[in-house]
Structures are given as C-alpha cells and as structure tokens.
C-alpha cells in the first residue's frame, strides 16, 4: 500500500532579507578561529622575535618597530575587538531588552567597538612612532 502524503500547506513566509543573523554567527566562528591563530603568533613573536621576551620599555618599543609585528598586532586587535563586540552583543541580547533594545545594543557595540579600535590603533601608532 503506497501512501502519498499531500505536501503541507505552507503559509509563505513574508519575503524578507535575512537580517544578519548568519553573518553574526559565521563571523563569530571565523574570528574565533583567527584569534586562535593570531594569539599563537602573538605569543610566539613576543617570546622569540623579541629575544628573551619583552623585558623592558626599550624592548617593547623596538619590538613594535618591526613592520611584520605591527601588521600582526594590528590584525590581532582588529579581530579581537570584532569578536569581543559580537560576544558582548550576544550576551546583552539575552537580557530581554526587547526588539528596540536589541537595535540599540547593536548600535552600542558598533560605537564601543569603533572607540576601542580607534584607541588601540592610536596606541600602536603612538608607540611605533616613539622609536
């Protein structure tokens, strides 16, 4: 007895572009994996590029004068802030602030991330310029 089940009657979902849900999650995973790599490079460089580690002020400054270091550290900061802001947003979302609250949270972390990033790059630039 072969049985055919009628296809379910579907209420067509309102056509609406995805609002970044997948972007948030996928980029969180990707940035997380990048952080693993960059953190490894960060630690290795600090201990091996700078011989004997960053023991004093002069060593730190000379370490930052290396353009490869500068590039890696900048990327590290960028990815770290991205990952941290997304994480912060995810945590805050679950506090029940409602739809409008969540929109505010998204803007909030964008602003906070921008400020943090701006400060971090200024810091790196300022230190690199000192040498």
């Amino acid at each position, binding site marked *: *007895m072969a*049985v055919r*089940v*009628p296809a379910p009657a579907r209420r067509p979902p309102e056509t609406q572009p995805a609002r970044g849900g997948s972007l948030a999650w996928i980029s969180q995973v990707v940035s997380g994996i990048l952080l693993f790599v960059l953190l490894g490079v960060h630690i290795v460089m600090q201990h091996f590029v700078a011989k004997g580690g960053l023991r004093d002020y002069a060593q730190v400054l000379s370490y930052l004068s290396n353009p490869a270091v500068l590039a890696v550290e900048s990327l590290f900061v960028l990815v770290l802030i991205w990952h941290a802001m997304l994480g912060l947003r995810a945590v805050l979302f679950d506090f029940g602030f409602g739809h409008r609250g969540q929109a505010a949270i998204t803007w909030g972390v964008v602003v906070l991330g921008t400020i943090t990033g701006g400060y971090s790059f200024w810091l790196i630039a300022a230190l690199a310029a000192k040498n």
Partner: protein
Amino acid sequence: MAALAHVVVIGGGATGAGVAHDLALRGLRVTLLERGELTSGTTGRHHGLLHSGGRYAVGDREAGIECIRENQILRRIAPGSFEENGGLFVALTDEDMDHLNPFLDACEACGIPATVHKAETARQLEPGLNPEVKVAVEVPDATVDPMRLVLRFFATARRNGADLRTFTEVTGLACTARTVSGVLARDLVTERDYEIAADLVVNAAGPWSGQIGQMAGVTVPMQLSPGVLLAVRGRFCARVLNRLHSSADGDIIVPQRGLSVVGTTSWVVDEPDVPPVPAGHVARMYAEGSKLVPAIAAAERRAAWSAVRPLVGGGAASTGRELSRTFQCFDHKQTEGVEGLVTIVGGKATTLRAMAETAADVVCAKLGIDAACQTAQTVLAPHGAYYTERGERYDHD
C-alpha cells in the same frame, strides 16, 4: 426563525465534539461544557486505532459496517490525521486458522476490503511478527491521534460559532415539570456558579452520562467497561496488528509515534472516575503482546493506563466484551417522559461522526428544524486552530 435554537452539549470528548460540530454546521447555537480540558476523559485515552471494522465484522456486524463507512469518511474529512499504515489480522495457531474463512466472509459482507497474505509475505511486510504466523489479512486499519482528530472537530465547531467552555462543571440540570430547560454550571476557574438556558440539552458525557441522566431523574442503559493499555518504547511494527480470533485481551498492537501500544483488557465497573489499573493487567499485556511480536516482551514500559468504555446496554454484563460497540441515542421524552434532554452514548471514536449525525437528527427533529447533516462532506480545520483561534476567556492583568 426569530432566534437560533440554543443547544447545550455536555461533555468535551469525541461524542460532544461530533455533536457540537454537526449542530453548529446545521446553524444552531451551541454551547459545550467540559469539566476539564477537552478530550481529558475516555477520548484521549483510547487505543489510537482507526478501526476498519474487521475486529467486529464476525461478532457485531452492525458495528463492523459502521466502522468501515466512517473510516472512509474520516480519511476524507480529516486528511493528515492518520498514520496511513493499514492493519493486519494475524493467525498464529490452527485454532486461529479456523477463524479465517468466517472472517473473510464477514469482511465481505460488511464491505471491508481484505487481502490475504501468505506467511512468507506477512513476515516480509512485518519483520517483527511472530515467525509462526500462518496467514495475515490486510485491512484498512490506521493509527489515529485521538486528541488531535477530535480537536479538529472542536476547532471547526468553534469556527461555526460554537461556544466551547472548558473547566466548566455541570452541577445540575434546570428541571421544571419534567422538562429540562437549562444547565447549572460552575466555572472551576473563577468558581462562579451560573445557569444556562437551553432549548435542548444533549448529554454526551461518555462514562459520566449516567450521572448527568440522574440529574434529570432518567436512567441511561449503559455499562462502564474499562480496559488497560500498555505503551512500550519503540515501534515494533509499521501496521496495526490484530490477532485473528474472537476479541480477547491484549490482542492488538498499534504503533504510534515512537511507541507501540498494546491493548486491551475489559471488565465492568460502577464508577467512571479514576479508573484503576488492576494487578496483573500490565503483565498480561506484555504476555499477549509478545505472542504477536516477540520483541514486545523485552520492550521498555513507557506507560500503563486505563480508559472506561461507555457501552450501550443494561442487564448483567460480565466482562463487557459481549456488549455491542454500536451506539444509541435516547430521547428521554420517549423513554421516561422527560422533555428537553437527549443522550447519545456508546460507539467508538471511529464512529464519532455517525453518532453525532444520529444525535443531531434527533435534536433537529425535536426542535422542528429542517437542516441536513453536512459533516460527511466538510473538511475539518487543523487541530492547531483549537489553540490559535481561541478568544480571551478571562481578563488577565
């Protein structure tokens, strides 16, 4: 008609669902009262078997004919509510084989399509089956979700204007001069007592029908016959499996979702509330069920429960098996001279629509309303509509 006739239906089980739906479809104003949530009595707890009629064909031809007709109608009006799996009547012994020809003759007489499978084919169709199977007869049984099928009747009734009042207990009937003119109800949520005037009251309270009848001083000739069912984890068959012999304990296995339901037993009680699971019945279900499907013996018990069949008939019944599974509608004006009360009792979930049609015909005849039954042609609303289309009953803060 100046005002619609108002009918109060007592009981939110399969019978009440059918009656409310039928009357609402005929244009009557219906109020249904149920003391718990809908389907919380016998209806929800039945085996989950949409009968082909095969089980009754030999001994109770009337019930067999009703079953196959309603089986076909329900599939039409409630598409998607059944596991379209079919059923097998399985002969395991030479004694069972003696039943084969009478069974096939009876199926033919009732109009139940029956296909005979040899042992080898039967084992292929159902690998879990007892390898000693001698022959199996395939009939259009099916698995049904008792609650969801009945909720579709309720949801449709409400779309047609029926007022469904759950958690509302009937505390009495308003009777004057041997006429029932309304119902005394108690809202169990607000604990408010009130009276509902009715042009007619339909007693569809299943096992509690006798108690409702007493409120008007009438007797409903019925027997309360509980049965125990056992659900085990795992699906051990795809089809409904019946033992090919005269009805006995534990001779049906119905696969439902991830479970297999073995049933049932039958005895007679006086009290419809809180039916007990007597000692030994669960063990008997295991023993009988594993005769059909040996793996049942080791299956994990998920639940054991009992449900009370409200069977038509008086006198001294010993186990309840000898009573017909058909239904009867009583106009108490004719039985005991009490006007305004109609009782519909007996039957099976499979025949709920036909029961309701009979009751609604009686109701309409009494009220002088000329409206034909349309339930056999009306496709039912989905069960979820019962929850999504509910109005607010109480003021919430």
